[in-house]
């Protein structure tokens, strides 16, 4: 896959370096392990998560609930509970700095300015007692020395850029006056108003209707293409990933189990879990037929199986799978954590679609 064209990168308002050199990742996560302290002792929720994201690239993170997608996203911005309640090890290299080692004061300059984030439920992410314009303005004034009037103008521009009609009027409205889709647009406006290099979107369309979801996915893809903003799209919806992302990262039980180009993984997944997720989608099955499901469920962090974590649920498990599985590089920026990946020919989305 070619690197994102550097020409798409805009010159940012404060003259900060706009783009990383081609080929160098914008974000590189190395061996990210997250542990939480609980009443029953420390539990490890992610295990040596490693991945890279290039400038302008859109990467989807998929997996069932409890796979560690959300905590991974939160940890990149230092939004997990403070130590000793959580312990994060590894490196999060962003624009040449390790965010995990950054003092809180400097982290605040990154958060919202270099990396933006949007969440699933826009109603709980917006403050009900401030207008939309005030909330966008708050972000702008936290990062730039601008007056109230300019902040308001920029807020109106931001609302217009996410497709909110009558932005100068909406700017003075409160969250409850907006519909769900409009609130999510407002959230995106807040996240993008400082022109971050990376946007982390955690299930941004899950609470929305399918027609509004289509609008939001479309908007995120277009904004990313226009501004060169990279997107880390956390979702359980493989359809959304197929439409919005060039690469997809499958997580299972706190580990990356597959990482590859979306089109390649959808067509020929190398990990049985990626294949299982695709096969259980009703749309890809024969009508009224029995759906192939993945038996069992994600193990809790406290009772993680040793060796391959997916083996207890895997139809392809064999002797040897009880050994620790490494995430191996199979070329063409494709990695998989399965000892049997070379011998298995797993069904993806295409075989199913053709068969029906």
């Amino acid at each position: 896959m070619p690197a994102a064209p550097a020409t798409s990168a805009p010159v940012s308002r404060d003259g900060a370096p706009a783009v990383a050199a081609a080929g160098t990742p914008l974000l590189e996560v190395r061996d990210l392990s997250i542990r939480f302290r609980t009443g029953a002792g420390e539990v490890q929720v992610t295990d040596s998560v490693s991945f890279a994201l290039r400038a302008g690239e859109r990467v989807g993170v998929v997996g069932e609930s409890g796979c560690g997608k959300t905590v991974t996203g939160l940890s990149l911005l230092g939004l997990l509970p403070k130590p000793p309640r959580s312990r994060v090890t590894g490196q999060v290299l962003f624009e040449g700095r390790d965010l995990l080692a950054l003092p809180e004061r400097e982290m605040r300059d990154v958060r919202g300015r270099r990396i933006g984030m949007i969440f699933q439920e826009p109603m709980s992410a917006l403050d009900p007692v401030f207008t939309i314009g005030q909330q966008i303005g708050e972000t702008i004034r936290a990062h730039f020395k601008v007056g109230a009037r300019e902040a308001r103008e920029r807020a109106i521009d931001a609302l217009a850029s996410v497709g909110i009609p009558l932005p100068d009027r909406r700017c003075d409205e409160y969250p409850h006056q907006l519909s769900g889709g409009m609130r999510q647009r407002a959230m995106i406006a807040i996240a993008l108003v400082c022109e971050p290099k990376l946007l982390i979107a955690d299930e941004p369309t899950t609470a929305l209707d399918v027609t509004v979801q289509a609008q939001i996915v479309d908007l995120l893809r277009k904004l990313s293409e226009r501004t060169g903003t990279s997107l880390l799209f956390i979702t359980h919806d493989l359809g959304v990933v197929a439409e919005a992302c060039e690469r997809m990262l499958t997580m299972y039980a706190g580990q990356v189990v597959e990482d590859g180009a979306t089109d390649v993984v959808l067509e020929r997944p190398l990990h049985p879990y990626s294949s299982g997720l695709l096969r259980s989608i009703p749309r890809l099955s024969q009508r009224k037929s029995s759906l192939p499901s993945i038996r069992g469920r994600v193990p809790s962090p406290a009772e993680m199986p040793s060796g391959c974590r997916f083996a207890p649920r895997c139809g392809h498990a064999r002797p040897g799978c009880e050994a620790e599985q490494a995430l191996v590089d199979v070329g063409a920026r494709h990695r998989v954590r399965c000892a049997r990946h070379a011998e298995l020919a797993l069904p993806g989305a295409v075989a199913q679609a053709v068969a029906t």
Partner: protein
Amino acid sequence: MSAVPAPGPRADVPLVRVADLKVHFRTGRGHETVKAVDGVSFDVAAGETFGVIGESGSGKSTLGRALVCLTRPTGGTLRHAGTDPFALSARELKRARREFQIIFQDPNAALDPRMTILRSVREPLDILGELAAPERDRRALEAIDRVGLRADHAQRYPHELSGGQKQRVNIARALTLRPRLMVCDEVVAALDVSIQADILNLFADLQREFGLTYVFITHDLGVVSHVSDRIAVMYLGRFMELGPAQAISERPLHPYTRALLSSEPVPLPSALRTDRRIILEGEIPSPVSPPSGCRFRTRCRHADEACAAGVPAWREIEPSRFVACHHVERIDAGGGG
């Protein structure tokens, strides 16, 4: 909409017959009326799965509640196997409604956190009060086993179960009454895709085993077209289209159905996706003052003066395919969405 109900696959007395059903709510403020369901007519034949799709605010949940007499319609008629449940006395209704059950979306909210699973599952039988206690326990345990839970789950509390297991409990609870109809309102929406597949398979097994009839209400097009025999597409309190599931998924006729189907994100590689998405502008209007004429016209790219002037008739365009659209023939011939 005409009062002629759409015929089901079987011509004898349908299990559910709805004619020009309306559910209007008075809101607290002023004299506004929310027309949640505003004139729908259909039959559900015994043994079939009738899917209802629509966005939030389309009235599909209100329709589901009316079907099992949780909400009293403000107009039109509802018949359960030929009888009007609202004409029954309270005593008779209590007995009759056991055959017409509903399962909701949120498996947590539907269970009392202080009751064991066994008590929750047995509760409908306790309320019915017809059977002796040991028989009620036996039936409840049988249902718990049937939905794929272990016997030791019976003594646990809801917080000790996963979301998928809790939804199984809710299914077991409806099963104890041996219903004929189950209204399933977004029953898999809160579940992960692999768990969702398990639950959908369970519904299919139960249907075969007990001859159940389902009304499956969902916003998920993949789910509805997988499970349903027929699908109704609802928008702002009315049906826009009704027909066999396969025909609707393969060749939707109403512009709203077309847009809805094209909005669904498809998990296929880019080369195999037909990128012919119809992005609907805006969102569903308020059910307090729906647009004149065709309710969908404000978001429809085929709309013209005729659509604002007159409510489109509910017409049988092809055998067993009903559509409410003035221009459906022209749009279908044009092939464009």
